[in-house]
């Protein structure tokens, strides 16, 4: 990739990726281990005509990025578990009003305020189901500093293309870890923007799906009327409780994701000859898994590997394929067992599934996983 080599922290790469994608607004409330993202953007955004606001809390922060996006600016907020809980109400609002935005959750340990400076992966189910009601969830889970940069760009692209909030889920380890990465030159990575109406303001309907499943979006203040409500609404944007309108609209929200899997799904699938053990891992735990797989190979044990980069929607296909080949699938995660349920759902009972789980504030080590590999072969 053509660009500039830098030695960056994960959170730094996230801020830089957001700017690359065209983000011009950040509204947030600082929280460890995500604060560097806010800190960097508070410095950078005003210099390029963007805006940074430290809001009074995370509820308002989430509302602010919805507002900024409605006027046409790509918007970001960043937080950790305790703040994410507060953002959920307005996350649902962004889902039903179809406002593109990106939310970063740098996961730390524990429920509530938990372990402020320790890593965790306990918010993976919250990311999918945290806000109430049926709603689409697009959640990306990078595992390196370079991938944080690239996936932040992709998060904005998907948000714009699908008109939906996208969550970037990292954790304290990769958020604070520093590695050498390449910041690509302008134009190397593709940047997508929301489609805007090509009709006159008089003809405009904010939820007009006659041309596609994702309606074009007008910038607030550009002369196009747009009624925004969290109530179920019709094409005009005004509330309705008419069953014949509500059901298809809710189905359409979900279909924006299920019918666009070709641009949303992303995973790594490594296959070894004769593998009878497989691992599914994501985020920083995937790095431990890779190290364990290399060590196992030195001991003569081949191990298959699936790493979801898009965590939601979950990549069913490679997981099911792996289950057809191996006897046991190990799912290491820094929680007490969350994605393991999803793995189990996918594989139709074709393999035994066991977890390696840690919530003590220390990462899962390659040795923790290797012990389990040795145990099952």
């Amino acid at each position, binding site marked *: 990739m053509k660009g500039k080599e830098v*030695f960056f922290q994960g959170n730094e790469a996230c801020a830089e990726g957001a700017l690359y994608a065209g983000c011009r607004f950040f509204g947030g409330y600082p929280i460890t281990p995500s604060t560097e993202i806010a800190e960097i953007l508070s410095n950078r955004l005003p210099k390029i005509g963007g805006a940074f606001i430290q809001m009074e809390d995370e509820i308002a922060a989430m509302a602010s990025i919805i507002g900024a996006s409605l006027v046409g600016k790509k918007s970001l907020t960043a937080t950790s578990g305790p703040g994410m809980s507060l953002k959920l109400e307005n996350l649902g609002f962004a889902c039903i009003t179809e406002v593109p935005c990106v939310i970063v959750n740098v996961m730390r340990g524990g429920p509530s305020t938990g372990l402020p400076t320790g890593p965790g992966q306990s918010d993976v189910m919250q990311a999918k189901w945290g806000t109430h009601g049926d709603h689409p969830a697009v959640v990306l889970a990078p595992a390196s500093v370079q991938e944080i940069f690239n996936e932040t760009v992709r998060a904005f692209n998907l948000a714009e293309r699908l008109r939906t909030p996208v969550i970037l889920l990292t954790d304290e380890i990769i958020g604070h*870890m520093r590695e050498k990465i390449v910041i690509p030159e302008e134009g190397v990575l593709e940047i997508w923007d929301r489609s805007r109406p090509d009709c006159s303001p008089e003809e405009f309907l904010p939820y007009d799906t006659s041309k596609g499943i994702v309606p074009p979006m007008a910038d607030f203040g550009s002369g196009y009327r747009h009624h925004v409500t969290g109530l179920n609404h019709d094409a005009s944007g005004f509330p309705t409780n008419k069953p014949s309108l509500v059901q298809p609209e809710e189905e359409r929200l979900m279909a924006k994701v299920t019918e666009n899997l070709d641009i949303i799904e992303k995973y790594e699938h490594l296959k070894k000859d004769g593998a009878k053990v497989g691992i599914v891992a994501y985020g920083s735990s995937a790095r431990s898994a890779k190290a364990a797989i*290399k060590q196992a190979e*030195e001991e003569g044990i081949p191990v298959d590997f699936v790493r979801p980069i898009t965590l939601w929607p979950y990549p069913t296909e490679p997981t099911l394929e792996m289950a057809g080949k191996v006897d046991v699938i190990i799912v290491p995660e820094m929680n007490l067992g969350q994605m393991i349920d999803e793995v189990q759902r996918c594989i139709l009972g074709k393999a035994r599934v066991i977890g390696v789980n840690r919530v003590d504030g220390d990462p899962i080590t390659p040795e923790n996983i290797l012990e389990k590999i040795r145990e099952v072969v």
Partner: protein
Amino acid sequence: MADRYEVRLSGAGGQGLVLGGVILAEAIALFEGINAVQTQSYGPEARGGASKSEVIISDGDIDYPKATKIDLLLCLTQESCDKYSVDLKEGGILLADSRMVTKLPEGNYKVYHLPIIDTAKDKVGKVFVANIVALGAIAGLLKSVSLENVEKAVLRRVPKGTESLNRRALSLGYELVT
């Protein structure tokens, strides 16, 4: 498997060990052309408490970014030495401050018991450059990085106006081991 070399810088929060690790890793990753990954671990407090920063160096991919079998351990406080020396591997290098660390762990280590903090305080005149004195000593002990490249990395990261202070701290640290 590619060679993997693990460094842990430990002490108390506020001693600049995270910055020390960042500088060391940046010198290696950007100027030596070898892979280096830096991570950190600290408590919620801004000052005090045990703090550590780790640098993994390898000519191959670095999957697991944390240290497990340490080749070189720096300890600037007794607490950090007690807590973190368990992961130092046999034959590894222990670099400990001679004023703060009075009780050294038993084991087969190459021990450098050096006046890091006193050098910063008495010879440079600023105790807060102890992390840079330590970096100088580490540069003298590590084969994978030159003093020149560490200096280049130091100058990129320290506040403007403190360059000569930090240069002096670095070279005094280097002289402690060479």
